[in-house]
């Protein structure tokens, strides 16, 4: 069993007991515990189930690399799934539940997957997707969905707050072990602005656990002094619980600070995401121990040797009463010695190396520990907990020599530098044969904006395995980084560290060397995703030679630990299966973040109302006061309709339409884009921008214009008014103001830069109100001021003057087919003018109308709407807008594209009106399909020739059109619609069938798109 020791535990505050619950059971730990160490102290080794086979899973590691110990943490607004127990600090009242099991952790039905394991090999999901389709749908998927899934999704809104932080530093140092501390001292003493971050809550990393001495004293003493020195430097900032999450282009880094995870009741942001621009980045990120691949290496109780040592030394936790150490290197002997020193029993050290270890081995033997050289673990006994190991010669095939009873196994396959942050932005790796690991290649670092290297790696992350090397190389890294950022390093020497000499390690990728299939299929590489040695071998056999393909096929390294434990071991197995060398096989790509960061930290403060700024017109407040039903249009909010008390939105829309048609409507049109284009070449420029002629527009006149992209497709439309000789005012769509202004600037700056044109976006400088309906003129005349009579201000003319005392520009343009004036007043006067119009218009029942009425009014007239009738594939010719395409101009944006063969195809879908035979409203976006048999037969022949057709090769009807706008017209008391139909204008009167999801198709007749007042008499009075 695992239990708390009476001694040891350098990180604990034994004076402060902490109560917490796991799966509803109350347990006790100490301040300074992680959730993992506290669980072990309470003999809770079993913490979860694996993803695929639901095998029992115990704690394997003591840090960020832990693959198994993921829990559902907290509840309600503070609930979080997949919290890593090894990096979760214990606090009073912590509640955790294990995950990925059903119905309970101890008794899990999914474990049948385990017995079916031989039927669920590598690529199981891919193979099953293809093979028995029905089985997937009816058997596998429902079962897997029910029984599996990592963690539960939170049900409540996040109750915490999060923030972003921006920092600019000379030197960012990631990792607060002795390497990071020494690098910070060296850079800090040189005067560089330094930020040093450490992901855990304590400084110094492994050195104190490993018995390192610095300057002749225990590492802890040196660490204390180093911290004091750093705290005294005003140019150095240090942060614990802060992880380097990612390194990006040109010295950008994301750093993730967990301020309040360990004290959830504090009035603090829970997480803080630092966005840092650093001159130089030092990655002092340490190394991660590799597991060994032997049969049953996943049984709870098998742990990394370093982790087991951490639990004893740092947390005073005994993982087992009787430990077997399995290793291929000297470092694991430290675990045996530490366990023995804690008064616990070490049953044996199984060393795969025929010659065994150096001075540490001698020390272990002198403590009376049995050491077996050239030996391997043949298999681990036990299911929910280790009960013993069977040992065999490493060189053999796994024939058991002896059974050693034990309840804990400490394994060490060597150490791999944490190269993630070095690699994120292109730092390359080299293979170190002696240590059998990849390490950063200092000659190929990530490059900055000037082509300078901007990442330096230090300590064991650089492959410096001995602590003396670690400090020397970290000192050099700190000085180099300071120098590169313009400081002058002090000519000090690095402190001297000493630790025991070590014999060379020996690469061991499976145990024993000649293990057969049966053993290999129990050797786990990826503990969370259940990828075994045999799976990688099968993938290689099936032709997955690229490491990236093997990863995806087997899911090796795709679990939430991102392959921190499994990567190198998996590569080695793949290389061996391919008869290749590990460096030739290469690694998969390291991608940020180093460990998962919370989604909320990425969102930061941008939640709720401040997620996105809101644009309000000067008349917005009136809408709020009058029950506006808001809809988002770009960043604006526009009123869809203004329902009165007790009125439905739909009824309000119909009322607004009828009031406008019969008497008087008012529309807040302030959001329409208003761009001034001015200069000697403005006319020439607008002729290029619009499909029709704008240079010959007379001052005082207005013209409707179309804009296309260089691809020929419609991008915007609006009325252009000529102000004076060299000034035009271009109205754009609501969503188009910024986009079209940018479009103008792009062409002016990058193509026609010698043209003398100036543009300015004045959208927000004016409020614009459309006064619409048969009584529009009467209202303006009642308010008094400028002459708005038919003779003084004709249709498509504009004038400047005063209306009711307001300075106004009055445009006689109409998007509704009614007598209509669009009146622009200074934005500051917008609300007052709007109120004045309502007050004076009361006698004509002046009615504010919203965007839906606006849409219906324009659709009744067959006017197109950018974004409804157009979708980036539609050209003006499709919409019957030939009249707006100038034939006088040599060129305009889109003209050449509109000559391309596909654009001139007579079979393009073209704009028509659609009238349902029963008067109902067509569904928006519904597709029409050909039903005319003769057309269909002709279509089959055309299809065979690769031309457009009505049916496909299987005789199925093809779509021949779609609905682009569809409304109930209160004016006409029936549904009206517009749509694009193949050869539409030639097919007037034909009845088409339109799809109607989950219902019978709807018949609609092709008609003219102008439903109301086709002669245009009403707008021209």
């Amino acid at each position, binding site marked *: 069993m695992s239990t708390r020791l009476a001694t040891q535990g350098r990180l604990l505050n034994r004076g402060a007991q902490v109560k917490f619950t796991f799966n509803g059971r109350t347990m006790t730990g100490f301040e300074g515990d992680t959730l993992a160490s506290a669980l072990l102290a309470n003999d809770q080794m079993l913490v979860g189930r694996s993803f695929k086979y639901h095998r029992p899973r115990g704690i394997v590691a003591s840090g960020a690399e832990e693959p198994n110990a993921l829990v559902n943490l907290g509840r309600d607004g503070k609930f979080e799934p997949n919290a890593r127990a090894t990096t979760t600090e214990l606090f009073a009242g912590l509640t955790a539940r294990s995950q990925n099991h059903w119905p309970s952790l101890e008794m899990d039905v999914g474990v049948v997957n385990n017995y079916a394991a031989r039927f669920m090999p590598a690529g199981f999901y891919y193979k099953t997707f293809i093979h028995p389709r029905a089985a997937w749908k009816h058997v596998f998927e429902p079962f897997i969905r029910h029984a599996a899934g990592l963690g539960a999704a939170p049900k409540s809104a996040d109750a915490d707050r999060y923030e972003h932080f921006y920092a600019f530093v000379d030197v960012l140092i990631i990792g607060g072990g002795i390497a990071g501390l020494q690098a910070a001292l060296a850079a800090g003493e040189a005067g560089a602005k330094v930020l040093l971050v450490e992901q855990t809550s304590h400084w110094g990393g492994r050195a104190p656990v490993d018995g390192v001495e610095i300057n002749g004293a225990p590492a802890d003493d040196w660490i204390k002094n180093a911290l004091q020195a750093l705290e005294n430097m005003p140019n150095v900032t240090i942060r614990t619980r802060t992880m380097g999450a990612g390194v*990006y*282009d*040109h*010295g*950008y880094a994301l750093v993730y600070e967990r301020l309040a995870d360990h004290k959830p009741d504090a009035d603090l942001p829970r997480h803080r995401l630092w966005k840092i*621009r650093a001159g130089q980045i030092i990655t002092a990120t340490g190394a991660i121990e590799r597991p060994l691949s032997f049969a049953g290496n996943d049984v709870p109780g098998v742990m990394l040797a370093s982790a087991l040592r951490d639990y004893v030394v740092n947390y005073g936790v005994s993982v087992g009463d009787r430990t077997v150490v399995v290793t291929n290197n000297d470092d694991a002997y430290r675990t045996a010695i530490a366990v023995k020193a804690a008064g616990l029993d070490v049953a044996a050290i199984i060393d795969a190396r025929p010659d065994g270890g150096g001075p540490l081995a001698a020390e272990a033997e002198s403590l009376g520990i049995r050491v077996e050289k050239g030996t391997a673990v043949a298999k681990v006994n036990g299911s929910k907990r280790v009960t013993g190991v069977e040992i065999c010669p490493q060189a053999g095939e796994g024939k058991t020599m002896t059974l050693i009873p034990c309840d804990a196994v400490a394994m060490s396959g060597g150490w791999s530098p944490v190269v993630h942050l070095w690699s994120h*932005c*292109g730092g390359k790796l080299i293979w170190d044969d002696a240590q059998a690991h990849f390490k950063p290649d200092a000659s190929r670092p990530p*490059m*900055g*904006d*000037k*082509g300078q290297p901007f990442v330096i790696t230090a300590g064991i992350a650089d492959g410096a395995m001995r602590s003396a090397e670690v400090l020397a190389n970290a000192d050099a890294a700190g000085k180099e980084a300071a120098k590169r950022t313009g400081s002058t390093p002090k000519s000090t020497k690095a402190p001297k560290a000493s630790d025991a000499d070590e014999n060379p390690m020996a690469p061991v990728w499976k145990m024993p060397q000649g293990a057969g299939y049966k053993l290999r299929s129990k050797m786990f590489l990826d503990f969370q995703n259940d990828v075994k040695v045999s799976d990688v071998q099968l993938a290689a056999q099936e032709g997955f030679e690229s490491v990236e393909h093997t990863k995806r096929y087997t899911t090796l390294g795709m679990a939430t630990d991102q392959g921190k434990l499994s990567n190198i071991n998996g590569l080695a197995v793949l290389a061996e299966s391919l008869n290749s060398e590990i460096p030739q096989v290469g690694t998969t790509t390291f991608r940020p973040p180093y460990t998962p960061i919370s989604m909320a930290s990425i969102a930061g403060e941008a939640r709720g109302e401040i997620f996105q700024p809101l644009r309000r017109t000067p008349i917005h407040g009136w809408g709020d006061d009058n029950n506006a039903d808001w809809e988002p249009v770009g960043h604006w909010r526009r009123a869809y309709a203004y329902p009165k008390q007790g009125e439905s939105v739909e009824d309000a829309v119909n009322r607004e339409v009828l009031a406008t048609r019969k008497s008087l409507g008012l529309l807040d049109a302030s959001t329409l884009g208003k761009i001034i284009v001015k200069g000697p070449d403005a006319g020439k420029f607008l002729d290029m921008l619009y499909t029709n002629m704008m240079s010959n527009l007379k001052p005082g006149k207005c013209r409707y214009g179309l804009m296309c992209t*260089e*691809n020929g497709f419609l991008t915007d439309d609006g009325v252009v008014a000529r102000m004076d000789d060299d000034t035009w005012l271009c109205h754009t769509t609501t969503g188009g103001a910024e986009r079209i202004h*940018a479009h103008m*600037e*792009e062409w002016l*700056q*990058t*193509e026609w*830069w010698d043209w003398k044109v100036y543009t300015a976006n004045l959208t927000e400088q004016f409020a614009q109100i459309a006064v619409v309906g048969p009584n529009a003129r009467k209202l303006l005349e009642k308010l008094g001021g400028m002459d708005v009579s038919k003779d003084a201000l004709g249709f498509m003319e504009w004038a400047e003057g005063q209306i009711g005392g307001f300075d106004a520009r009055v445009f006689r343009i109409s998007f509704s087919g009614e007598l209509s004036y669009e009146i622009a007043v200074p934005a500051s006067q917008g609300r007052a003018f709007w109120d004045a119009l309502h007050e004076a218009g009361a006698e004509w029942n002046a009615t504010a109308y919203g965007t839906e009425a606006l849409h219906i009014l324009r659709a009744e007239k067959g006017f197109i709407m950018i974004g409804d009738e157009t979708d980036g594939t539609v050209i003006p010719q499709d919409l019957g807008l030939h009249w707006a395409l100038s034939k006088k101009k*040599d*060129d305009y944006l889109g*003209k*050449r*594209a509109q*000559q*391309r*063969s596909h654009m001139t195809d007579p079979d393009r879908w073209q704009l028509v009106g659609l009238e349902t035979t029963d008067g109902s409203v067509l569904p928006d976006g519904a597709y029409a399909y050909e039903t005319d048999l003769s057309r269909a037969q002709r279509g089959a022949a055309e299809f065979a020739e690769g031309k457009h057709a009505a049916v496909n090769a299987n005789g199925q009807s093809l779509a021949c059109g779609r609905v682009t706008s569809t409304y109930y017209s209160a004016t006409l008391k029936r549904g009206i619609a517009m749509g694009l139909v193949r050869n539409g204008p030639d097919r007037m009167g034909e009845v088409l069938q339109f799809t109607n999801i989950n219902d019978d198709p709807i018949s609609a007749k092709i008609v003219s798109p102008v439903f109301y007042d086709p002669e245009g008499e009403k707008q021209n009075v």
Partner: protein
Amino acid sequence: MLILECPYCGVSGEETEFHAGGEAHITRASVGDDDQAFETYLFMRKNPKGVHFERWQHAYGCGKWFHAARCTMTLEVFGTYSAQTFTPPKALLAEIAKKRSGFEFEGGAS
């Protein structure tokens, strides 16, 4: 996230201040050009592993378009310059040639 220097306002800014606009030095084809020439203008873009001349706009700054010469592999920015030119500045080309042996500027879309 890149750092770019706007040659107009002189600000050295974060990539989020800028807006990328694709390959630079493309010659416009239009009415009168054949289909092939127009297709090349409209669609054909270089995608080099190495030196790339590209358009950027200082969208959240002075609003100006400019050009940048950048290595797509190492992300080194060799320099930025006015967009109102048909070829990159000679000095910049010389500097790139010094850093990338065998480099030659090929104007326009190929």
